[in-house]
């Protein structure tokens, strides 16, 4: 077995410690390949050491607290948004409903304006009745 073959076979081993007899024999004779093998062992010892580390059991509580913290603000943001939207809707409705109620008065106002104009231009004595008409037309104010 050559060193190249040894290295290739070493890299092909899926788990450490699965060496063949042939590889073992080559390693006994070749210091360089033995060193490569030992370095690989160090790598797998390192992996085992890191794998053995246990996560804190409190991490679940922390994760759930974070999830619930994220969930709650979304509801708290939604509520003021809903209130603002409702206020705007009420305001708009108020505006239009006011014009509904004042519809008759608006038409009487238009009539009175027409009377004023007619009186002003066609009357022999313009202005004499204007004050009376105004007083009558705008009495609701």
């Amino acid at each position, binding site marked *: 077995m050559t060193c190249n073959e040894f290295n290739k076979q070493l890299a092909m081993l899926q788990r450490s410690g699965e060496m063949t007899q042939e590889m073992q024999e080559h390693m006994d004779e070749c210091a360089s390949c033995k060193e490569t093998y030992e370095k690989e062992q160090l790598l797998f010892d390192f992996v085992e050491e890191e794998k053995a580390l246990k996560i804190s059991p409190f991490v679940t509580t*922390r994760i759930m607290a974070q999830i619930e913290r*994220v969930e709650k603000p979304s509801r708290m943001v939604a509520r003021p948004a809903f209130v603002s939207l409702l206020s705007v809707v009420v305001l708009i409705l108020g505006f239009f409903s006011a014009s509904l109620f004042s519809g008759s008065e608006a038409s009487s106002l238009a009539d009175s304006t027409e009377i004023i104009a007619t009186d002003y231009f066609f009357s022999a004595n313009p202005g004499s009745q204007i004050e009376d008409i105004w007083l009558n037309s705008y009495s609701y104010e």
Partner: protein
Amino acid sequence: MHTTPTDSDLVQQAQDGRTEAFSVLVDRYRQKVFQTCMGFLHNGDDAEDLTQEVFVKAWNALSSFDGRAAFSTWLYRIAVNKAINKTRKNKLRSFTGIIDEVTESGYADEDAEINLMRREQREQIKSAVNRLKSRQKKAFVLFYYQELSLAEVADVLEMSPKATESLIFRARKRLQGWLSR
């Protein structure tokens, strides 16, 4: 008779907004996700923080989980992608000098010289693993840190088992080359 709920039962309940079902999934997979994070970050505190981020991300994306893959496969996919992003950020931060790397020693009672040598070896291994290309690193970590089978790694990486096998082989060859220098 009390039966243990399956992952898909718990996922369905969690998708309906039941946080307690998701909490069971967290308990079930936290150690595995943590091991994956360790494989990328090599620091317990950072790996724990990243584990937390992975589960929060999984919760937020749970509505997009359609059950085509196993929940664990989907979760590990999130974990490896988040870990890769984190290592990129860490690299950038260490490059700009924001991170001062503190190496913990687990051999405080032993001879200082041996301690130093072990620390150097660990640093050499860490930097060799970190030098792997991202797909090779993902495959290496899932296979050796999580001990997933080739088929499972292939599922997480969305590759064929044959391509995954060759990815792991190339990762091992590269590590072999870097470590024997």
